């Protein structure tokens, strides 16, 4: 199956053949996996890299001098270099490995607030943040007797800039998402970063949804911190990254303490290790960081611009086809170039659980619920929505299966 509009054609079938799980049958039907905003499937290259590590190179890293340790350490640290290139960071010591984007954001929030936040200060977030980029700030604001300001968005997820600037005035931190996991909205991260800096805020960008689906250039965006998640970009679970500008990472205290993040430990005091290890306490998820390396290779070979182009195409077709269905309500931007391939919708009065269950009986996997964005759900005046999200292995046949499935939902429940 060829993509018509891409100037660099690729075969969906070829891509799919790299992903073993896509050969599965679900309730006797072809698996149509449309829950990529929740997690992505893994190519054989990633699976093999992890097996290879455990079969041939397994060792703890950084401390031992034997051969296995050497190989494991090298493979681990090479991944750090690959992440640095992938997001266009300046220095390898600005890339910290965590267990996921949630932990990366918690680390940033905890340590920034510890160092910089005083009673009476304020932190600005938006209404459409994922709980991982909302709850930490909310809780830390309470802890430090500071205020949480919530910038509003319109129906398309665009931040109200006039209101935002008022809230940023005097604030210490501005945290925002680069792509909404509900509305699909691609924020103007560069502009939001600039607004944050105009008001002397520390800028924290949540790239969990954006980094897998479009090129990331941290120098362009110029945020101070950036979080991403391996399992949302073909990598294994258990790995996330926090990018932080070196000067700031030097200033803020560690989040977790223990082995590997120290240089010297005495009875009454400890000196921290250098960056980035200052923020990597204990044994890391070594195997999966190395597996992540294979995911980055896969995406880099394919080309992130091409991923985005493919998804804009698919998104456009999906929006067109979905709108033909009677009583469908689609949330967020209707222009697929302003929206990652994440489409939240409701189907008349049918509850999203029921939509998702009936689609499942047709082999179609979507997500239903609040998508870890209850503040946004409240703003949208819904308790839950259905959500279909695409990736490089999805094609027009998947859109067709989704629409056919939705017709079945209507037959059964309306």
């Amino acid at each position, binding site marked *: 199956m060829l993509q018509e509009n891409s100037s660099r054609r690729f075969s969906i079938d070829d891509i799919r053949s790299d992903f073993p799980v896509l050969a599965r049958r679900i309730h006797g039907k072809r698996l149509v996996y449309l829950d990529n905003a929740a997690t992505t499937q893994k190519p054989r290259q990633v699976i093999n890299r992890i097996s290879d590590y455990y079969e041939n190179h397994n060792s703890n890293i950084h401390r031992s001098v034997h051969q296995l340790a050497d190989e494991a350490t090298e493979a681990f640290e090479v991944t750090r270099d690959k992440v640095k290139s992938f997001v266009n960071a300046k220095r390898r010591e600005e890339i910290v490995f965590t267990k996921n984007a949630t932990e990366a954001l918690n680390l940033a929030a905890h340590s920034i607030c510890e160092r910089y936040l005083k009673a009476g200060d304020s932190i600005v977030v938006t209404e459409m943040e994922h709980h991982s980029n909302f709850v930490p700030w909310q809780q830390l604001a309470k802890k430090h007797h500071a205020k949480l300001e919530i910038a509003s968005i319109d129906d398309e997820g665009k931040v109200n800039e006039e209101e935002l600037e008022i809230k940023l005035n005097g604030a210490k931190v501005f945290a925002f998402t680069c792509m909404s996991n509900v509305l699909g909205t691609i924020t103007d991260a560069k502009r939001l970063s600039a607004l944050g800096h105009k008001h002397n805020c520390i800028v924290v960008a949540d790239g969990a949804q954006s980094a897998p689906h479009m090129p990331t250039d941290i120098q362009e965006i110029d945020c101070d911190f950036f979080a991403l998640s391996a399992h949302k970009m073909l990598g294994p679970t258990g790995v996330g990254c926090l990018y932080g500008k070196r000067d700031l990472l030097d200033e803020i205290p560690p989040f977790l303490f223990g082995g590997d993040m120290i240089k010297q430990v005495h009875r009454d005091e400890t000196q921290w290790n250098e960056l980035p290890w200052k923020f990597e306490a204990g044994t890391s998820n070594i195997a999966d960081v190395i597996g992540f390396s294979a995911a980055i290779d896969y995406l880099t070979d394919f080309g992130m611009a091409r991923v985005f182009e493919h998804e804009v195409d698919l998104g456009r077709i999906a929006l067109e086809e979905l709108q033909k269905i009677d009583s469908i309500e689609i949330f967020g931007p209707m222009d697929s170039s302003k929206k990652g391939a994440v489409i939240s919708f409701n189907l008349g009065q049918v509850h999203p659980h*029921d939509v998702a269950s009936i689609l499942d009986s047709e082999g179609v996997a979507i997500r239903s619920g609040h998508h870890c964005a209850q503040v946004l759900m409240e703003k949208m005046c819904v308790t839950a929505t259905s959500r279909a999200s695409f990736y490089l292995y999805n094609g027009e046949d998947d859109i067709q299966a989704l629409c056919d499935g939705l017709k079945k939902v209507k037959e059964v*429940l309306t």
Partner: protein
Amino acid sequence: MSSDMYKEIILDYYRNPRNRGTIDSPDSKARDSNPLCGDVVEMQLKFSEGKVSDIKFSGDGCAISQASASMLTELVMGKAVDEVRKIDKTLLLENLGSPNLGAVRIKCALLPLKVMKTALYDYLGEKMTLEEDASSSK
């Protein structure tokens, strides 16, 4: 296989809910939501001479949770308190036509049971045992 979930009996209760509403001055009431987001069920009960003389449910949610709530009110209505105590997950699911629910959707079906039991024990001045709490939500 998953279409086994939407048996006729469930669709019937979903489309034509019995006992949906509220009671003027109920003897007890309880409300809860599903951890699998989006289902809310409230139950209101009235008692007379050791029996449930009236029961109403209200709420918003998926077909399974709302059908289960409605069916449960029919199961409970008019029964002696001791009989209502005995209503458990097995009986509930049998009366729903033993749908093939899976680990995640079963919480939708069991939510009304948990709410009803909470209201019942509230009235009796008792507490649900840990075992009962666990088994009524898994």
